[in-house]
């Protein structure tokens, strides 16, 4: 789409776009270019010079068992976060949609956790499951279950998944609820007249109508669990125990800033960049489709 009416001149528009151009160039394109460039070098042991290794960093990474493990961890983590945040959200949205009165009150209450930063959510969940003072871990202990996410990798994973999914329930709820409200009531009533009871109506009519929203949320939640959960991991487990919760973004941070391995960290950034690129393409493909829907 284009405007028919255009103003003339080039100096004014150049000035108008200048702030964005300068900020993007300095803080975006230059660093992104640097990341790609640095991924082709390794620093010598004294950190004085850089040695060209071509794709060596990538070859090394892809054969590194720790990096591969981190890929698997990320996949497991993001699938679990997506499921644990979408299923309860859909359930709550379906219930809220059945209410004629009061759904606004519930909505107001349910959007709270969205405003809580992932890092703060991490601290709240850490507090509940803390091995020494946590309420939940204490009651689990009373039941004979010895909770220790500091030593047990599976428990650590479970805890970061729940803490990351918690705030997302609000987000997914809002989208599901809006989509449910948009389902034409006449269609549902027609099915009800034909004798279809609630669950049958849900599976055969409502859920298919929700599929664009569901697909959209799938992509968005995967992107979220890839990139925005850093705060949760850093506050609860710091990637441990034995790297069982080291997702890719966490590894970029720990290799780049903690171990100062710039070449490897940059190569990891480039790989992540490709992953984000693919996810974005997927998202846009879908949005194009939805426009024609």
């Amino acid at each position, binding site marked *: 789409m284009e405007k028919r009416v*255009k103003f003339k001149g080039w100096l004014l528009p150049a000035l108008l776009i200048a702030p964005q151009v300068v900020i993007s160039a300095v803080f975006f394109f230059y660093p992104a270019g640097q990341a790609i460039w640095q991924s082709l070098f390794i620093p010598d042991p004294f950190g004085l010079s850089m040695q060209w290794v071509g794709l060596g960093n990538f070859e090394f990474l892809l054969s590194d068992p720790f990096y591969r493990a981190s890929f698997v961890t990320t996949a497991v983590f993001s699938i679990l976060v997506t499921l644990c945040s979408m299923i309860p959200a859909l*359930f709550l949205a379906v219930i809220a949609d059945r209410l004629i009165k009061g759904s606004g009150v519930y909505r107001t209450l349910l959007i709270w*956790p969205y405003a809580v930063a992932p890092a703060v959510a991490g601290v709240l969940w850490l507090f509940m499951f803390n091995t020494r003072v946590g309420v939940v871990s204490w009651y689990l202990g009373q039941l004979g279950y010895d909770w220790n996410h500091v030593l047990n990798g599976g428990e650590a994973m479970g805890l970061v998944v729940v803490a990351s999914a918690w705030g997302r329930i609000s987000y997914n709820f809002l989208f599901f609820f809006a989509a449910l*409200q948009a389902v034409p009531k006449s269609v549902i009533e027609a099915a009800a007249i034909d004798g279809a009871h609630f669950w049958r109506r849900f599976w055969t009519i409502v859920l298919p109508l929700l599929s664009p929203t569901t697909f959209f949320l799938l992509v968005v939640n995967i992107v979220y669990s890839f990139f925005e959960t850093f705060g949760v991991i850093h506050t609860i487990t710091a990637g441990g125990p034995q790297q069982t919760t080291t997702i890719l973004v966490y590894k970029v941070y720990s290799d780049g800033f903690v171990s100062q391995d*710039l070449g490897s960290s*940059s190569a990891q950034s480039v790989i992540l960049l490709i992953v984000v690129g693919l996810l974005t393409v997927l998202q846009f493909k879908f949005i194009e489709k939805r426009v024609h829907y």
Partner: protein
Amino acid sequence: MARQVHGMVEKRGSGLWLTHVFMILGVLVIFFPIWLAFVASTVTQADIIRPPMPVWPGDQLWTNYKNALFSGINVPVGTMLFNSLVMAIGIAVGKIIISLLSAFAIVYFKFPGRNLFFWLIFLTLMLPVEVRIVPTYEVVAGFGMLNSYSGLIFPLIASATATFLFRQFFLTIPDELAEAARVDGARPMRFFWDIVVPMSRTNIAALFVILFIYGWNQYLWPLLITTDPEMNTIVMGIKQMFPSGDDFAHWPTIMATSILAMIPPVIVVVGMQRLFIRGLVDSEK
């Protein structure tokens, strides 16, 4: 929300009660972590380190919050709150200004390199700050912007989402308005101030809500560039309050800080709920 006619598919009677019960249970489960944090912020350390901690608030609310706000652990939480506020507002306002201007240029001008520019900002959509942290850190350090507000703000406004939103919106402004302005001999910037900006009010407000939350909740970036506790933001500062050794963390202060860290974004989200939902739906489209 659309007005609904009471149809045959809505539940009444016992079914309705059951629905409310489920809903309340859901809300309680979702709220439980926040409630526990609040309770912990109103009791003494002694109450907490002998589990199980109480489930009802104690009488230390004032002491704990005063202690957190004015002395904190590394730095008073009041200072961190102020830093977060500057960062969140800086990011929201900065992003809105630069993207209003550039979207206006893209939509209402024909200039050489317009398409190239458009595709370049499109690229910035794809790359979260987490992916380019090491080189961005080097750039910011090179400018001497570590431990400064500009260092906290600028790298996070280099993204194009807002530009795209405004572009989409400007395209829906009727051409007649621009035509009339041109016939009247109004200069482009006059048209921008008198017509485009006032018409974008709602979009600006909705975007402000989303960007405020985005800025407030940043974690990794402040963690990297604020080594001076005086510059810590509250969301990243909480983690710094944990002792490094085997000591007990001072939970009442930490939990009071967590509650303080969520109050401003919660006020913004709940108070401006309608704008927030609109902004959310717009910015994801």
